[in-house]
């Protein structure tokens, strides 16, 4: 009895701290921004209210609609670019590299940049793509360009290059894991049945790697969608994303209700994407065991 009640006490403590923390620092803050999102702005402060004006503004004012669309577009491009690079890389590692040591090393080589400061990885692209940057001065010095050009930096191209660079490890990891799980005898069986390499890829490897692709795409998309560092460093006026708009509502624009509503919209978009990818994964799960 004594043992049991003490056991219960330990369990209670183990549960209690994290739950309390999650309520105080996650649940309550989310409820607060949800509440603020219905308030009205009345310079210089905000009034408690319950109205959907902030949301109406986000969905009907072309200024905010276009930022949301642009953010989605850039996130899609980044996801596509990361997939195009990550898939062949992971495929090569799993199916072509014979030595386990080389495979491990190459895998580490892709993951390692995650440990290197995210800010620095964005910054270095600014120094590369800029008007006085490394790429421009290189092209001028070898005679391809007569004078430095502005086309590399402060546009959506530089955003996609930089963000793909930053988030590509998140695409490689799940795809690699998914490809590694595919039993090699399935591929041999397909070969023995007379199906060519392309057929084997499309009918065996690709479907079985889809869970990894979906997981990677979800991660890359969501992380890009909420990024606010890259737009400031390499985006320029054309690359402002929703996170920058939120930031300015809490800063210079001083409109916390609108900023909160935007944050809730981002939260809902990210959650729906995760929910969707969860469902797709569950529906498409193929049991190999």
């Amino acid at each position: 009895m004594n043992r049991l009640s003490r056991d219960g006490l330990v369990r209670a403590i183990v549960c209690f701290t994290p739950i309390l923390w999650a309520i105080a620092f996650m649940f309550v803050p989310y409820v607060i921004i949800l509440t603020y999102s219905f308030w009205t702005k009345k310079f210089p402060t905000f009034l408690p209210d319950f109205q959907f004006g902030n949301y109406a503004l986000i969905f009907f004012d072309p200024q905010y609609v276009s930022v949301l669309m642009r953010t989605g577009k850039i996130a899609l491009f980044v996801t596509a670019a990361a997939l195009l690079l990550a898939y062949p890389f992971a495929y090569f590692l799993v199916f072509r590299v014979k030595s386990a040591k080389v495979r491990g090393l190459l895998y580490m080589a892709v993951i390692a940049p995650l440990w290197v400061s995210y800010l620095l990885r964005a910054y270095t692209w600014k120094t590369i793509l800029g008007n006085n940057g490394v790429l421009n001065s290189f092209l001028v010095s070898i005679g391809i360009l007569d004078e430095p050009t502005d086309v590399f930096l402060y546009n959506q191209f530089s955003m996609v290059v930089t963000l793909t660079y930053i988030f590509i490890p998140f695409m490689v990891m799940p795809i690699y894991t998914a490809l590694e799980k595919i039993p090699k005898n399935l591929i041999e069986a397909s070969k023995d049945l007379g199906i060519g390499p392309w057929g084997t890829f499309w009918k065996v490897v690709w479907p079985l790697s889809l869970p990894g692709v979906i997981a990677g795409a979800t991660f890359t998309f969501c992380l890009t969608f909420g990024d606010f560092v890259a737009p400031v460093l390499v985006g320029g006026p054309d690359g402002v994303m929703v996170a920058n708009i939120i930031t300015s509502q809490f800063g210079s624009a001083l409109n916390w209700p609108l900023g909160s509503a935007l944050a809730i919209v981002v939260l809902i978009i990210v959650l729906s994407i995760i929910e969707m990818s969860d469902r797709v994964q569950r529906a498409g799960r193929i049991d190999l065991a």
Partner: protein
Amino acid sequence: MVSATLKERAGNGVFGTVIACILAYLYLPILILVIFSFNDSSSLTLPLKGFTWQWYETLFNNSDLLQALRNSFYVAISATTLTLLIGVPAAFALDRIRFPGKTVFRRLVLLPLVLPGIITGISMLNLFKLVGFQLSLETVIIGHATALISIVVTQVFARLQRLNRSLEEAAADLGARPWETFFFVTLPNIRSALIGSALLSFTLSFDEIPVTFFLTGRDNTLPMYIWSTLRRGITPEINAVGTLIILGSLVMIVLSVSMLRPQDE
């Protein structure tokens, strides 16, 4: 037969090129960052002008930067400790204890893995303003710890799921008290997950911007300091700080690989 191997070779060639390009894409920018930290010119353009330590010297005489560096260590060490203290029990609770609202709790705790950092940042900013907390490095620590719990929970939980429970049962059968079982059986078995998530949490906290941006008072962490200098323009001094940070990351990577290897084998 011959044509098959030839084809395979050609295929390997194509793949090899793709790999080389991706590795170049990943590492050339970092290399460029490092090279220009030693370049004897205040602009970051080619051709290179010659070798100098000058940017490192200015760096070590920059008291603001050194203070930011100290702040970053303080924040990262505290946040890592705090996040372990909350995240490890959370992982145990999720693995072993049934309680009402468990699914909601799991989702809530894991949310920051995919949720943009600025949402964690502004939601906690709202909380602190509401209850009248003064923004400081301590509020940053609470913010980081909250965002990083997700990292600790995913890693420790995954390890606990793979843990062979019969070891703990055997210890209990042999008369070990629950705390003895925990410290001598369970803990050593999840050691790699603990170290791994601690190192990762430290690195991520050291490097964090979005949450710090909203939750810091007058004090700057290193990334925030770099961030504010960047808005004024690019200087090779930033490359020098960057090179040192990369060196630090390298140490962390080697540390995590070498500390985690023995048990995983």
